[in-house]
């Protein structure tokens, strides 16, 4: 168990989140296509997991006692690739090959091609069931590793998510901690216009989950939520992370059109200036 969160921790993680955003933007620009908005909105959450919360080892990606991270919203692949590269799972220059022929950095994550990717995702709604299965296996082996699963908010429109919601609660999977990147936007527009997902907190509570509602860009709140989740017994935890699509880049923020579009060279230049880093 980690000791109390310090200002140094928070500042370190904020820097890491900025580095992540820089890598995401650079690789997407290089690729010329991909999902910008949803990669940026979940960057703070994923930073907190890989650089603070999770036990994992880039030298030994299959370490039996590792905590698991499943990117159920597989279209945020650039985010996963960036965090794996910065954690040392592979060399950073590989990020430039995103979506290119022969690259292990497929448009959506492929576990057979890249170390650190737990399972292939990309078709929405499937990650939580897989997380539950891993969690059941960990309990059989009496391992106290935890399983983190990141979902999109539009993603929870998939029926399978609710099947899995019941399974996690029925089997009292307190080693499952799911996070919804609630940026409010999906490809065709605002979630509330396309297919309402609210009341999102009540829904998960009704399904037997412990629910924590936070600002998904407040690093301290994120760390506290993960700490709280660990104390919950006999229930899975759902963190509803209220986020902004395209977070960190003013001209991408809250813009639905940047769901599946990569930045242009000019936009990248401007974005890097805003982030105040050169991305080296």
């Amino acid at each position, binding site marked *: 168990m980690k000791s109390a969160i310090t200002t140094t921790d928070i500042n370190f993680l904020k820097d890491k989140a900025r580095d992540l955003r820089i890598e995401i933007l650079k690789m997407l620009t290089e690729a010329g296509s991909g999902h910008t908005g949803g990669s940026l909105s979940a960057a703070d959450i994923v930073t907190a997991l890989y650089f603070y919360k999770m036990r994992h080892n880039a030298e030994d990606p299959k370490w039996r006692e590792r905590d698991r991270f499943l990117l159920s919203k597989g279209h945020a692949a650039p985010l996963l690739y960036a965090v794996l590269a910065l954690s040392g799972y592979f060399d950073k220059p590989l990020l430039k090959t995103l979506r290119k022929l022969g690259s292990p950095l497929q448009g959506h994550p492929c576990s057979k091609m890249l170390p650190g990717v737990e399972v292939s995702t990309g078709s929405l709604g499937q990650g939580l069931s897989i997380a539950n299965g891993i969690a059941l296996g960990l309990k059989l082996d009496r391992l106290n590793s935890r399983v983190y699963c990141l979902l999109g908010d539009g993603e929870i429109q998939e029926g399978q998510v609710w099947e899995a919601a*019941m399974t996690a609660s029925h089997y009292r999977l307190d080693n499952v901690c799911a996070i919804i990147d609630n940026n409010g936007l999906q490809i065709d527009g605002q979630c509330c216009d396309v297919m309402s997902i609210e009341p999102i907190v009540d829904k998960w509570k009704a399904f037997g989950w412990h629910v924590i509602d936070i600002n998904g860009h407040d690093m301290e709140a994120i760390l506290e939520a993960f700490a709280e989740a660990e104390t919950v017994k006999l229930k899975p935890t759902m963190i509803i992370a209220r986020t902004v699509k395209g977070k960190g880049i003013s001209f991408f923020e809250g813009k639905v059109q940047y769901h599946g579009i990569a930045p242009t060279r000019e936009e990248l230049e401007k974005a890097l200036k805003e982030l105040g880093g050169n991305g080296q």
Partner: protein
Amino acid sequence: MKRSSKGTSYCKTKKKNGDNPPLPPFSKGGMGGFIATRDAYGEALLELGKSRADVVVLDADLSGSTKTGKFAKAFPERFYNVGVSEQDLIGTASGLSLAGKLPFASTFAVFETGRAWEQIRQTVCYSNLNVKLIATHGGITVGEDGASHQAMEDIALMRVLPNMTVVVPSDAHETRQVVSAISDHYGPVYVRLGRAKVPAVMPDDYEFKIGKAYVFHMGKDVNIVAIGIMVSTALEVARILKHDGIDAGVINMSTVKPLDTEVLLEASKKCKLIVTAEEHSIIGGLGSAVSEVLSENYPIKVRRIGIMDSFGCSGTPEELLKLYGLTSESIVKIIKEAL
């Protein structure tokens, strides 16, 4: 593992060069009697659970019918009922496989392969996970439940997926062998089992190997390539034809994918007609698999016996087999017309 004894004393000397054994005598199940492959699965799974601690079993509220209930009773801590949710069934099984377990996920064939096809594609096959999909209630012999519960498309749906192995055992003995063999094989496997009781057809000393067909007899006039319940029908057909002076062979192609092309081509080169027999749509199943190989490698006359691009209906298995032309009489007629 104890297996049922049966009347035939046919042995495996057929493997020797140039040695083509005669048809085995007709079997009414011998001392082993008639056993549904799903019953044999339930028992085999229970045995496997005793010898392997990594085996876990999942079901979607049909454990009484799929016979996983036996395992559930013996090993409740390794059995997961996910309720009526096939997509979650596949995902949860996938997760257990990622945690190092050997999951067997069972429900009815139409729901497992149809309702959860995309989960099988995206998660099980794309990630090449060690998940065993064992579905019961394949084919028309589901009977009275009718078309909604009769899987006619499952083999087609599974065969098209990369990394997937597809197996259809013909009797109880072969089912036990299959459960054992696939537990030692890494990767996704789909096994199609039946609801109805079927006669024992495989010899006592038969050992199932993935991708290896079993040749009962190679015919000079026609060879019938069959799976599942149609293997015993094919043997009956061959017996009838022999009486009429037609040398008909029978091949149990229990692994539909990867297909034993070697045996198929050998059989084709020795005869004038290849007939496939399955209680599955003639589109996409064994008939298609065989036709694909033959059309490219040895174009020969082929007749596909199966469900002719239609849904089933309610009735007893016997009535339905007759209605859909899956009886020995019907097949004999088709062969005689084709020869």
